[in-house]
Structure formats: structure tokens, C-alpha cells
């Protein structure tokens, strides 16, 4: 079995761009990815596209054909919706399509327009990743759900809002040279701790911002890369996906994420590696506590141990296991359906040493992308590795 290669990547600036339509953003990202790959666009055989809230934000369903058209492609296109893990799920199916030999060149990506509807409507739109009858009707917001998990974590394992603040400080620092990031500004732990509470114990700086943006990547078969002499050194060597009960109250754990554990086990097995091989990673930190849950679910820390990882300096760019060198969802921004592919883009650029934080992972060969939906009722994990051309 051959490992698909990342032939090219492209993205828009992540931030507040309320006037930009989803199609215009995706066109920019998709064309940039095709240009970066340097392939003939006629060779693209399918689009795998992630989007979460297009019906609510743009009154636009059936987005995938629209997005293929926006990039100038006449190919079958399918939209993937798994809440915040939408484009992680799209990557996974793109990988399967290439591995099976059914396609040699595919475009994968995502786009999300969010700020045009305002904060209140965006908060409402994000909340629908939860169970409408039993969670939303009880007033559970997206931050509220992670607040329930954060309190459960503190009660079970210890830790504090000070530990969470250090995660926010780290990810903001990581984003400083990232020209695509929504927040290129340093914060202090005091800033985070003094910020208004959104859903106790989580405050404003524990939360990712509301973001407009699009991402795209050209994935090709190993054979196509060789035949066309493509300059591709990054391969997707492992893929995994996990699921869990939709409503938090129906889960066995509130402070652990079995969907991430299952996705990671499958992805490690698929790539033939273990957690010890991971040099750096991008995890789904929609909230600071989510980074903690991800690191533990990925088997990189024992349950209860990752809460202090940023405070101890282990996951900073100088640490042994840099996490979210792009700035993460927290500082880079979280255009929901585009996020999974954004992680793949960051990792590709870091491995190819064309990312402003590349020097922090010099010599690294193996990285993970962890994308999670809702309160982790969906999770995908991908292993990306530098390979011989």
C-alpha cells in the first residue's frame, strides 16, 4: 500500500472577514494549493470539502459543487460535515480514495464564513454540534460544554485555571510570526485570568475566536508524484477515526475523550508507529482544556498529566513536544470546516521547513494532526511523515 503525498497547500488569512463569501475564500485557498502543487488542474479527480454551518451562515447547502466550480474544477465534489472535524473527515476519505487506486489526484479542503452573522448567532450556530433536544434546550453552549468537561477534569485529576492560562499564553506566542493567524499578539497569564468568564471555569482567553477562512491541499498518489517528478516530501502515513455518544451526559467519561483514543490507536497502527515517535503535533484546542484532553487521548500523556504540560514548558516551541506551533485554534483561529486541513497545512510546512516556526522542529520527521467535532463525539487523527522522494 502506498502513502498519499501532500503535493501542495494553500489557505486564506484567518480572521474577521465578514464580507468574504465562502466561495471566494475557498477559491483563493484552492487555487493557491494547485499553484503550490504545480500540477495540471485537469488531473484533479475529486473534491473532498469540509463545512459545518453554511446553511446558517450563508443560507447555502450543497456547497461542494459550488466550491469545485469556484476553483475552476469540473469534478465530482462531496461535502463532509462532522462539526469541527469536518475537514479531518474529508482528509480521511481522500486518503482512502488515493490508497484504493480509484484516484491519483484529489483536492481536499474546507471553508467557513462565521463573523458575518455576529457573535450571538455564531454562538448559536456552534451550539448545534451538541444534542438539540437534551443539551441545547437546557442552555448548553459550545463553551458551556467544554466548561462541564473542564470542571470534571479538575475534580478528577486536579489542575487549575492558571494551568489553562499557560496553554493560551503558549499558543498565542506560537502564532506571533504566523501571517495567516487571526491573533498575532502575545498575552500574559494575567490577561487570560483577568478576562471575562464565558462559562465558568472558562474565560474569554480559554476560547478560540470566531473566524472566517478557507484551506485546501492537493493530495496525490505516490505513483503520480513519482511519474510527474513532484517535489513532495510529506506523506500521510496513518489515518484513524473515533466516535462517541453525541451528548456529554451519555458518555462514560467527562474528562477523557475515547473517540480521540480510538482514532489515535488506529492511526498509529496504520502508520506503524507509536506515540513515542511523535516529534510535534497540531491538536484541536477549540478551548484550552481541549488541548489537555487531546494530549492525553493521543497517548502522549497519562490521564491527569497533560494539564501542566504547557506550564512545565514541555509543549512550548522550546519544549520536547511542541504543540500547536501554528498558534492552534486558539490563536490561529477556527474557521470550523477548514480547521482539519489547516492542521495538515501547518504540519506540511513545518516538515518542509517553510514555516516561520520550522527552526523549532529542525530534523523532525513525524507529526500528528488531531481534529475533533463537538465535545469529541467525532475525532480524526492523521500521521504525517517526511519521506524519501
Amino acid at each position: 500500500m502506498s502513502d498519499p503525498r501532500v503535493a501542495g497547500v494553500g489557505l486564506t488569512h484567518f480572521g474577521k472577514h465578514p464580507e468574504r463569501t465562502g466561495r471566494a475564500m475557498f477559491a483563493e485557498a484552492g487555487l493557491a494549493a494547485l499553484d503550490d502543487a504545480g500540477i495540471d488542474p485537469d488531473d484533479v479527480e475529486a473534491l473532498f470539502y469540509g463545512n459545518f454551518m453554511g446553511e446558517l451562515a450563508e443560507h447555502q447547502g450543497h456547497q461542494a459543487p459550488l466550491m469545485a466550480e469556484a476553483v475552476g474544477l469540473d469534478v465530482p465534489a462531496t461535502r463532509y460535515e462532522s462539526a469541527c472535524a469536518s475537514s479531518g473527515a474529508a482528509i480521511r476519505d481522500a486518503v482512502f480514495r488515493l490508497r484504493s487506486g480509484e484516484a491519483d489526484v484529489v483536492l481536499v479542503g474546507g471553508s467557513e464564513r462565521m463573523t458575518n452573522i455576529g457573535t450571538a448567532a455564531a454562538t448559536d450556530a456552534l451550539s448545534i454540534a451538541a444534542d438539540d433536544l437534551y443539551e441545547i434546550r437546557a442552555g448548553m453552549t459550545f463553551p458551556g460544554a467544554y466548561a462541564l468537561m473542564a470542571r470534571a477534569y479538575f475534580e478528577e485529576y486536579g489542575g487549575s485555571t492558571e494551568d489553562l492560562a499557560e496553554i493560551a499564553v503558549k499558543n498565542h506566542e506560537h502564532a506571533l510570526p504566523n501571517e495567516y493567524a487571526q491573533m498575532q499578539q502575545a498575552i500574559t497569564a494575567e490577561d487570560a485570568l483577568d478576562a471575562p468568564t464565558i462559562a465558568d471555569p472558562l474565560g474569554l482567553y480559554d476560547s478560540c475566536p470566531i473566524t472566517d477562512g478557507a484551506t485546501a491541499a492537493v493530495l496525490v498518489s505516490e505513483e503520480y508524484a513519482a511519474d510527474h517528478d513532484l517535489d513532495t516530501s510529506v506523506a500521510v502515513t496513518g489515518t484513524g477515526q473515533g466516535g462517541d455518544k453525541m451528548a456529554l451526559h451519555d458518555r462514560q467519561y467527562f474528562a477523557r475523550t475515547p473517540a480521540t483514543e480510538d482514532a489515535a490507536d488506529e492511526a498509529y497502527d496504520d502508520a506503524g508507529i507509536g506515540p513515542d515517535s511523535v516529534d510535534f503535533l497540531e491538536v484541536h484546542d477549540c478551548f484550552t482544556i481541549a488541548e489537555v484532553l487531546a494530549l492525553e487521548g493521543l497517548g502522549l500523556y497519562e490521564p491527569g498529566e497533560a494539564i501542566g504540560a504547557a506550564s512545565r514548558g514541555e509543549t512550548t516551541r522550546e519544549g520536547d513536544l511542541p504543540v500547536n506551533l501554528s498558534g492552534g485554534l486558539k490563536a490561529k483561529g477556527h474557521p470550523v470546516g477548514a480547521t482539519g486541513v489547516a492542521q495538515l497545512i501547518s504540519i506540511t510546512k513545518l516538515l518542509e521547513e517553510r514555516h516561520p516556526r520550522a527552526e523549532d522542529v529542525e530534523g523532525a520527521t513525524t507529526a500528528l494532526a488531531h481534529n475533533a467535532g463537538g465535545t469529541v463525539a467525532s475525532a480524526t487523527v492523521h500521521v504525517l511523515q517526511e519521506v524519501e522522494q
Partner: protein
Amino acid sequence: MSDEPRDEGFDDLLDAIADGEGFYVECANGHGSLPPRLACPQCGSQDLSEEPLPDSGEISTYTVVTVPTPQFEEDAPYVTAVVDFGPVSITGQVRGVDPEDVETGQVVGIGVGETVTREERLLVFEPR
């Protein structure tokens, strides 16, 4: 609200709780879940029955929501909690106690209340 179609299972449960006759769905293997169910979400069993919901439970985790969605605009701040009733856990709002005084492990009963903002029904918990 009367013009809206009912949500089968969910509205039946709220009616039952309002009448003091709350129930949950139990499968042949003893797994609890909330309606509507045709299959047990834990094991897939289709041998399901309605069993009386224990009349009190313990708060497993909670949050005080200060930034709500529009449908709870005038309700905020409010306490959302997950309460463990034994065979099932349920999410609802804790009322009748100062948010500052809510704690995990607190014993609460369940009832049906109304939201301030839109006068919509919701599950509420009150200290026992």
C-alpha cells in the same frame, strides 16, 4: 408553542416529569438511555422498557453560563449541570439556589420549567 409539532419521546418525557412520573428507557442488559429509542445506544438491544426515573440524582459537573445563545439571552447567567440519576444522566438547569452555592455531589430533584427569554420548556434541577 402549541402550534409547533411535538418532539415524540422528548416531549413525552417532559410531560411525564412534570406529572411527577419521570421515566427512562432500559434495555434487557440494564443500560439506561433517554427517549426516543428503538435500540439501546450501549449494546443495540431492541428489548426496551420504560422504567421509573429515580426521584433524585447527584450533580456530576456544572457550569455557570454567562455568554448564552440568543434563546437564553435573558436567562443568563444560569447554571447548566449534568446530573447522575444512576441508570441515566441528564443535562438541565439548576434553579432555586444561588449559582455560587452549586457544588458537584449536590443532591437534586428534577422538574420541568420555562425559559425566561422565550418561555420554552426545559428540564430543571432543584436541591432536595
